[in-house]
């Protein structure tokens, strides 16, 4: 057994779980998104996150309303439909010490914001990018989204004639180094994956099937609670062991023994411990992760867990060779070259 996080009524900062709450949700009662918000609150509480260092981002849609419903002590930015990745890119470039949490939906990410999603991943923006995926447009009352499976039926819009976009697969193909899928009805797995994701260095995509109780919860729908509860196939039993103040290691090593356990050691000293359940899946292999998701799509199976993990690539700010200090905190002297430098330069134009 991994050591259980020693969390009582208060966390390492002396804060209670309630301190991490947000405003009251205005989503439909029973919405999968609210249970994800709850797991974000638990994750932040148990990880002892400093709320002032956390920034919350979202686009537009039901999912994108949720950053108001957790972590009231953090700055939040409910931006434009599909455009949250660019806003988060700018903000995390401006201040590299911020911990970014993005909440998006399947319409936000899979359609209008698909380009920004892919380019955020390509740049390796440091963010936990949560997709609250219900296969349907809720606020506009029940149109198919791009993640709805082919042949699926909806009340007003009939049968979906088009194949689904698998956002986890797209993330892996796009170069994302942490890709997970979960189910909002599997609270423990969601929370554990979020803890691992927030410890990751770089873009971490967590695609969470989150049923829409109003427009897409028919037991026939593979984005419904009933379906998820009956059909979820967790790849592993996952434990997250927080590294605490263990110094960062030079190299990430994933040790996969003969046995049943994979320990993924992360940059910050944390460990994701994966215990084999029904089937073999080694999240270190990109090819196998892609094959797994293609098979799941073909056979309409609902696999969850850590799909893919690799050693983090340089963050965008590192690629750009930026100073360590947040750009937003530069002094006026650092922001403005001297009078002499201007005079010298002017002579070059004479």
């Amino acid at each position: 057994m991994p050591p259980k996080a020693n969390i009582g009524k208060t966390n390492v900062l002396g804060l209670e779980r309630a301190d991490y709450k947000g405003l009251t949700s205005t989503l439909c009662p029973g919405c999968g998104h609210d249970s994800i918000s709850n797991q974000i609150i638990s994750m932040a509480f148990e990880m002892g996150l400093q709320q002032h260092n956390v920034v919350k981002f979202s686009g537009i849609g039901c999912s994108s309303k949720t950053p108001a419903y957790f972590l009231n002590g953090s700055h939040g930015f409910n931006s434009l439909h599909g455009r949250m990745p660019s806003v988060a890119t700018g903000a995390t470039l401006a201040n590299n010490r911020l911990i970014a949490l993005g909440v998006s939906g399947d319409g936000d990410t899979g359609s209008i914001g698909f380009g920004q999603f892919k380019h955020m991943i390509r740049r390796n923006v440091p963010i936990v990018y949560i997709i609250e995926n219900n296969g349907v447009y809720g606020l506009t009352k029940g149109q198919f989204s791009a993640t709805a499976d082919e042949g699926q039926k909806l009340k007003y819009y009939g049968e979906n004639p088009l194949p689904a976009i698998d956002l986890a697969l797209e993330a892996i193909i796009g170069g994302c180094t942490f890709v997970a899928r979960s189910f909002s009805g599997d609270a423990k797995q969601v929370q554990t994956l979020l803890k691992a994701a927030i410890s990751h260095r770089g873009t971490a995509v967590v695609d969470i099937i989150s049923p829409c109780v109003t427009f897409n919860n028919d037991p026939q729908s593979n984005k419904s609670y009933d379906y998820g509860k009956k059909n979820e196939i967790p790849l592993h039993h996952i434990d997250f062991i927080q590294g605490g103040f263990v110094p960062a290691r030079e190299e990430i090593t994933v040790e996969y023994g003969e046995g049943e356990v994979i320990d993924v050691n992360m940059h910050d000293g944390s460990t994701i411990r994966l215990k084999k359940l029904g089937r073999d899946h080694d999240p270190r292999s990109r090819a196998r992760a892609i094959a797994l998701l293609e098979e799941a799509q073909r056979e309409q199976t609902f696999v969850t867990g850590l799909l893919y993990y690799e050693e983090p690539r340089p963050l965008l700010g590192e690629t750009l060779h930026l100073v360590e200090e947040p750009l937003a905190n530069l002094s006026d002297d650092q922001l403005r070259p001297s009078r002499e430098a201007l005079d010298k330069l002017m002579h070059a134009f004479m």
Partner: protein
Amino acid sequence: MCALNVANQVQAGAYSGQPIVNNFTIMAATKNGSGSQTSNNVLVLSLFRMGIPVNGKNLFPSNIKGLPTWYSIRVSKDGYTARRVTTEIAVVFNLDTAAEDINNLPPGGVCLLPAEWKWTQSRQDIVYYELPVKELMAKTDIPSDFRDRIANMVYVGAVAQLFGIPMDVIYKALLDNFNGKEKPTKMNYNVAALAYDWAKDNLQKRDPYRFEPMNKTQGKILISGNEAGALGSLWGGVSIVAWYPITPSTSLVDAVLDYKHLRRDPATNKETVAIVQAEDELSAVGMIIGAGWAGARAMTSTSGPGISLMSEFAGLAYFAEIPCVIWDITRLGPSTGLPTRTSQGDILFAHFLGHGDTRQICLLPGTVEECFEFGWRAFDIAEQFQSPVFVLSDLDLGMNNWMGEPFAYPSQKINHGKRLDKEKLEEFFAKYGEWYRYKDYDGDGVGYRTVPGTDHPRAAFFTRGTGHTEKALYSEKSADWVANMERLHRKMENARDLLPPPMIDYHAGKKIGIISFGTNEPAIAEARDWLAAQGIQTNYLRARALPLAHAVHEFVKQHEQVYVIENNFDGQLCQIIRMEIHDTRHVTALTLGDSLPMTPDWIVKQIVEKK
């Protein structure tokens, strides 16, 4: 100009009339991508170094190689830098346009063309100088890969000899053009020198045009508006540039790349300026809004199509009150339009960019000095008003080289506006017992903001494009919406007289007022002199920001006749004036919008005809 007087004797022999000194335009017609840029830059720089007031304008196609391009160089002993309708001297090096280029010359004009064309010299009223380009190039040992590109140096040498540019000046200009690299300098120089010597030995000067050294450019600089804007931004503390390539704005970001080393941290050799090439303009503006929200000074540079893509984000930033700077190097639209031709056609769109009731702050530079000044000032203004700031330059100002005074070091310290760090937030709570993001504590419409990462338990607030209260909470109540819009209105009304004020040349008693903005400046300055010579006295106001200063309103009221001169089709500044001022029966829009920089010739004709 007395070109007509010489028209009937030009073919006869050596010119014996009065010389025309430092007061004419020379144009080089070449093919795009043929290397003529080096030749033209070297000519402009050489004339500038000779102390002669000069302006070069590149009229280029939307094409990489092959289509016709024209570069016109005007020298003016009186210091005028506007485009002129007439070109006295044509370097005709593009066979595709040769007939038209020669036809456009005025009587008494001069044509330099390759001898190997064996062109029929059908015009008797101009001077032809045939240059044996092929023959001269064959004498050089230049590798064949370079030969075509360097052949344009033949006209540099011939122009230098015929009209009077010392070859040592040409050499120095070439050396600077190639950043001090001797090999390409010599390769180019040798061709120019060969042509110079050939012209000296073989051509008899039969025209009146002469360059003569002056001292009118001493202490001045020669720079493009885009370079000036980039330098201004670097001195203004830009830390994040997100952009998508688009003509004619690309060279602004290129210049940030060229000079960002001036901001490099000397201790670590790391950058304080992040430059991100985004996947589109929409993402570019999203990035700078995220960065501005998080406390960095962020900008993008684009042109019309990019501005179109940015409109939703611009409305968000206006409404959520986030500072950022957006340069629009205007080109001709709508749609793709003429992407390599100049225009002032985005002013209405930019000012009202965003759906709903938006009024964006726009700065309107008219000179390279203002490109620099507004470059740094834009960030202060954006933070002062917690709003996007658009800087509307144009292709003519942005991509051409202009004379200017060396840039003045920013006259004010960096101003982050009403931004509360931890200590200031504590002071704020001590004073008011509260802090609400969008509450108007000072009555000027501008609230106090915090940025993420502020280590204070009450620093956080939620930013949204949805309706919100002064506490930044979601609200669908009409009263909250209206209160917020009234505050935004108050903010923009206050901005009128806090933005760069209009430049005004006013003398009581003059009945005609001219209003304009941006790069029409040199054409208007010259036109006013011509008009005055004809006895037509004018006052002049050049607007430098939107929303318009109250001084613009005053100026309109002070005159019996007001002409609003702009380089767009619909008279967009005039429309803004009409929106704001009740009685505008005496206001007339003089609009050109023909894809070219404005000329004094056109302005004078319009005003004389209207009078």
